[in-house]
């Protein structure tokens, strides 16, 4: 186990991980009779890439939903930036600087890629409706300013050529990338990724990995990710939480997890190389 002291730790490849950014304390979530999450606690540290893994239906996505405020757990507390987060609506959570992508792509199908990514900047655009209606002046200036930022993200994720394409027409992999772009546009301090690499081939996974690492590196964004590709998880993440049937069955560095018998039984099947 790592020494998870308040000051953080240093990873194998020499990155400094900071203090606790978000902490889940004894979260329990039920849907009628179904217990999706049972008494789970873990933390996410600043600058860290934190993976959540587990069999299907283990409650991983539900956990992300709890973090982003979409599900309200019956029990437990969410601590963010050192304070207990009061009950809030998802959009308020987003305003705290938490952005995410979705397991089943949730892009706005009726808009172009550019507009989709621009929605990521919503919380930075403050003109009111009257200024909007007049357009010239404040609204336009703000639009241009944010557009510049978005263009940077678009460059970064190499989706320049599809800027004006309606997202409905894009193949799956590109959609995932656009979704990431939208999340990044919000300049989040915590980025939640739900299976960002599902449905991709190795090469695309490599691209995606590169983006994730770069985001983490360049912007210092903290990332929590769910992924089923063990290769990716083990290579990218600093620490891993393992869930099974709503319970936490492991938490630690990839190496710890690899050799954790409970995890092997419940999830990996065979010891992963």
């Amino acid at each position: 186990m790592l020494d998870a002291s308040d000051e953080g730790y240093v990873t194998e490849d020499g990155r400094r991980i900071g203090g606790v950014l978000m902490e889940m304390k004894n979260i329990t979530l039920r849907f009628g009779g179904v217990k999706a999450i049972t008494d789970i606690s873990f933390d996410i540290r600043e600058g860290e890439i934190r993976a959540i893994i587990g069999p299907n239906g283990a409650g991983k996505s539900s956990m992300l939903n709890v973090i982003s405020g979409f599900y309200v757990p019956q029990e437990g507390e969410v601590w963010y930036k050192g304070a207990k987060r009061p009950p809030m609506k998802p959009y308020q959570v987003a305003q705290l600087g938490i952005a995410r992508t979705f397991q089943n792509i949730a892009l706005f199908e009726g808009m172009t890629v550019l507009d989709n990514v621009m929605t990521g900047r919503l919380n930075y655009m403050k003109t009111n409706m009257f200024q909007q209606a007049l357009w010239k002046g404040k609204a336009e200036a703000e639009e241009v300013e944010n557009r510049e930022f978005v263009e940077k993200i678009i460059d970064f994720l190499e989706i320049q050529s599809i800027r004006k394409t309606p997202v409905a027409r894009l193949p799956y992999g590109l959609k995932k990338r656009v979704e990431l772009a939208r999340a990044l546009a919000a300049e989040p301090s915590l980025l939640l990724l739900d299976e960002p690499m599902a449905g991709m081939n190795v090469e695309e996974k490599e691209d995606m990995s590169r983006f994730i690492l770069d985001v983490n590196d360049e912007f210092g964004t903290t990332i929590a990710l769910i992924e089923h590709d063990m290769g990716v998880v083990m290579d990218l993440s600093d620490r891993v939480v393992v869930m099974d049937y709503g319970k936490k069955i492991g938490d630690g560095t990839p190496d710890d997890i690899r050799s954790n018998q409970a995890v092997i039984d419940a999830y990996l099947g065979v010891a992963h190389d």
Partner: protein
Amino acid sequence: MLDAAETQTETLLEVNNIEVIYNHVILVLKGVSLKVPKGGITALLGGNGAGKTTTLKAVSNLLASERGEVTKGSILYRGERVQDLTPNDLVKKGVIQVMEGRHCFEHLTVEENLLTGAYTRGAGKAEIDADLEMVYNYFPRLKERRRSQAGYTSGGEQQMVAIGRALMSRPETILLDEPSMGLAPQLVEQIFDIVKSLNESEGYTFLLAEQNTNVALRFAHYGYILENGRVVMDGPAQELRENPDVKEFYLGMSDEGRKSFRDVRSYRRRKRWLS
């Protein structure tokens, strides 16, 4: 298991040089041909947007509902032209598709979802119950969730429902579109094991579109690689696995074995056979 030599057996499904256009303007498939031998597992590989799903939908005649159409070429099943059939005729002929992205009936329970799979069968209740039991055997998780609405099940559970539903129709040929997407590793293995065992014991034929090239090539007999709406390479799975390009771009292996995803940060432009 069939090996390369035996694929000379009867060709069940034959796609000849088809072109597909969406919305009258977007040309997606630019001449795709492939053959699916009876009793074999044929893999269709390729990156995002290569046209795998489109090819499968062209075969199962689901394109019309997406405003797409096959404008050229022909599709033969057992030597018979099937382009003009309705999807349900095709299911009656024994071809069923498991669609990409699950597509469960959200408001139906898991069990009802499975039962819709048996829609085209005239089988009696006992027989269908037996098949239901078989599916539950394959996917015990579904048995636990049988009474809940499919819309509320997790991604992986939905994938199981979709596959189970297809099995319920007792097909001859299954078109599987990305069965491994979003599944936990053991489940992926398990699903491919199921594919294999169905193939071997029941003689089901599979045409399988997959991103997870690694697994796909392990289980398939023959593979086609699609890029940008064209078949750029095909061959017995064994050979494809050995091919250095495939190794690098689809299996993520370099000469030193598996690369770490951390090491890809240095820029690297991909090589394309065609674009």
